[in-house]
């Protein structure tokens, strides 16, 4: 115990005096998590529920166009604005605003839209009333079309969202017009039939036999859709930039422990310190455990620091705060398993590499590749199929996926134990390799 503790304290002393190592371990992931979160925050907000903004250019001014503008302005997912700086937007203004970055798209409601829609609906309803409904489906109604103009840099996912909102609004307005015409036509038809059957009955002026049909069929549907993520308790959180980046870059920083750890081991071997230790009455296991405990402790402190950055610093810079949720114990367990895996790799590298230069190149390159494959930089689902299969071999991927399960998908232990087992297996294998190689060095 005393020898293990002495080794642990010695390692902490050495690390605390290694300014470059401290910068690498603490400043680098902190800067990365702040920078990457702020860069991605806007993107994820937009794709995760916040609004893409566009202008509505109303060249028609008729009732249909006014209803359409109102429907668009009421939309949740995408933000539409018909009056900008106190005046109606023109097509020229809107194009300039897109170029200036103020809006990402604009919608043009062309002149004659109201007339075209009303005429088209009237013809359709008249056909229904005269038993020619079967001819309507194949016919196309001529007339002006609503146009959408996008910022060329706007990603496809946002264009699809905007198109969906505009199409839904247009369908809703047309349904409303159709219902009004249908109600009027039915009323006329019923009154006409009653007059024919009763020999001249006529209702009082203004009296309707068929009430006016409400136009809320599309905007207030009877049956709706409820969308929720898959989770054990249903307490799903949006995958915000903060929830994604804090664990991701904390892991990245933790795995960079391989640089100081392998460097320390190589230095001890090359400077004869390891040989001196090997002729002292202390076992290799105690020395390795002392060293590992110190560096695993550093990794956990690193993780805590990045969590604090996510919880306190990032909100000051305008992002959401990092939310640990009610699974703090499980999250600490994942952090511990990740730290063990990172340190196992660092230990193996320190034993296998012959020079500091080898370790200083191989270590970070392996970590960056494992991070890229593991979804730290780009989500795994966005990778090509073959890369997704390769990514299953990344310890950073196992750890990151486990964090996402806990932090975003709100999973329980049953959903994460397999990845924890993989991390521990990785640690066991790297530790075993290190011990075997160390034994061979002094034979």
């Amino acid at each position, binding site marked *: 115990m*005393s*020898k293990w503790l*002495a*080794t642990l304290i*010695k390692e902490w*002393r*050495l690390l605390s*005096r*290694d300014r470059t190592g401290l910068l690498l371990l603490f400043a680098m992931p902190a800067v990365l998590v702040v920078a990457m979160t702020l860069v991605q925050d806007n993107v994820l907000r937009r794709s995760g529920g916040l609004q893409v903004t566009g202008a509505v250019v109303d060249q028609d001014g008729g009732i249909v166009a006014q209803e359409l503008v109102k429907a668009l302005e009421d939309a949740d997912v995408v933000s539409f604005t018909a009056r900008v700086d106190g005046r109606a937007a023109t097509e020229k203004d809107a194009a300039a605003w897109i170029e200036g970055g103020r809006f990402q798209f604009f919608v043009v409601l062309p002149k004659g839209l109201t007339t075209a829609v009303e005429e088209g609906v009237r013809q359709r309803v008249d056909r229904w009333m005269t038993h020619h409904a079967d001819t309507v489906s194949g016919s196309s109604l001529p007339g002006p079309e609503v146009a959408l103009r996008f910022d060329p840099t706007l990603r496809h996912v946002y264009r699809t969202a905007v198109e969906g909102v505009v199409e839904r609004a247009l369908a809703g307005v047309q349904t409303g017009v159709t219902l009004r015409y249908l109600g009027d036509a039915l009323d006329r038809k019923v009154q006409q039939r009653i007059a024919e059957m009763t020999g001249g009955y006529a209702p009082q002026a203004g009296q309707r036999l068929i009430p006016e049909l409400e136009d809320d069929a599309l905007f207030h549907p009877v049956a709706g859709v409820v969308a929720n993520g898959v989770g054990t308790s249903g307490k799903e959180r949006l995958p915000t930039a903060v929830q994604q980046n804090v664990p991701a870059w904390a892991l990245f920083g933790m795995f960079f422990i391989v640089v100081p750890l392998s460097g320390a081991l190589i230095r001890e071997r090359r*400077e*004869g*310190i390891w*040989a*001196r*230790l*090997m*002729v*002292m*009455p*202390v076992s290799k296991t105690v020395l390795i455990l002392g060293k590992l405990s110190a560096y695993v402790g550093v990794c956990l402190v690193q993780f805590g620091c990045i969590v604090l950055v996510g919880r306190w610093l990032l909100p000051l810079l305008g992002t959401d705060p990092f939310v640990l949720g009610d699974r703090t114990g499980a999250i600490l367990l994942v952090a511990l398993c990740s730290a063990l895996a990172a340190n196992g790799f660092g230990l193996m590298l320190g034993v296998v590499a012959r020079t500091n230069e080898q370790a200083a190149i191989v270590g970070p390159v392996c970590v960056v590749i494992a991070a890229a494959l593991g979804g730290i930089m780009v989500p795994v689902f966005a990778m090509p199929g073959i890369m997704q299969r390769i990514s299953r071999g990344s310890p950073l991927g196992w750890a990151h996926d486990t964090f996402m399960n806990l932090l975003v998908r709100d999973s329980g232990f049953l959903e994460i134990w397999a990845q924890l087992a993989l991390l521990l297996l990785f640690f066991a294998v790297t530790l075993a390799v290190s011990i075997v190689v160390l034994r*061979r060095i*002094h*034979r």
Partner: protein
Amino acid sequence: MADGEGQCPSPVLRVLALSKRYRGAPLNALTDLDLTVAAGEIFGFLGPNGAGKTTAISVMSTLLRPTAGHVEICGIDAFRHTARVRRLIGVVPQDLALFDTLTAEENLNYFGRLYGLKGARLEDAVRWALDVTGLADRRRDAVGTFSGGMKRRINLAAGILHRPKLLFLDEPTVGIDAQSRNKIMENLLWLKDQGITMIYTTHYMEEVQRLCTRLAIIDHGVIVVQEQTARLMRQHPDCRDLGELFLKLTGRQLRD
């Protein structure tokens, strides 16, 4: 039998038919080495570069396992009871095997704890080792700020901290000035008076003549001669000093 505190029966070191061949090497690094060192002796272990001195010290100090042969320290089999033997020996390696960013005191505290020292015993041991090597007033300074001579002295302090029965010194004065070498020589003679037995390797023949009561010269992994220093010189009256005798026995051709 002996432990770290008790008496060590003589001979302190007994080496029988010791051979070592590194994995994959075509030849032995050591072949049939026989050696006996009595308590209180400073035994000189000489040889040209690559002769096998460091390998011999590494095997005798339990760092390397021998291919064949037997090493006994204070009557204890070094490879059956390695942990017990390691409490009895100290090693001053050729490399300055110290943590540069730790202070002299922190280095010694760490090594002392690995020898099982703690509390007042550890404090006393560290103070004693620093006093012996003349570094007490620099105990709070990082080793990295020390001169070459001071680093050699703190290297010695780390080897004697636990007052070993047998001290292995592998070229402990290499690369330092005459004053520091002289200080280390004085330290070693004082330690000899304290009862510490030493195995000493060096390329400085005047050090051997000053310190060593007996010596062995090794070449190509084989002991060429093993004798009392004074008697060996008498056996070769044609050699003016140990340096000439060394060249006579090992040849003048370069080894590396």
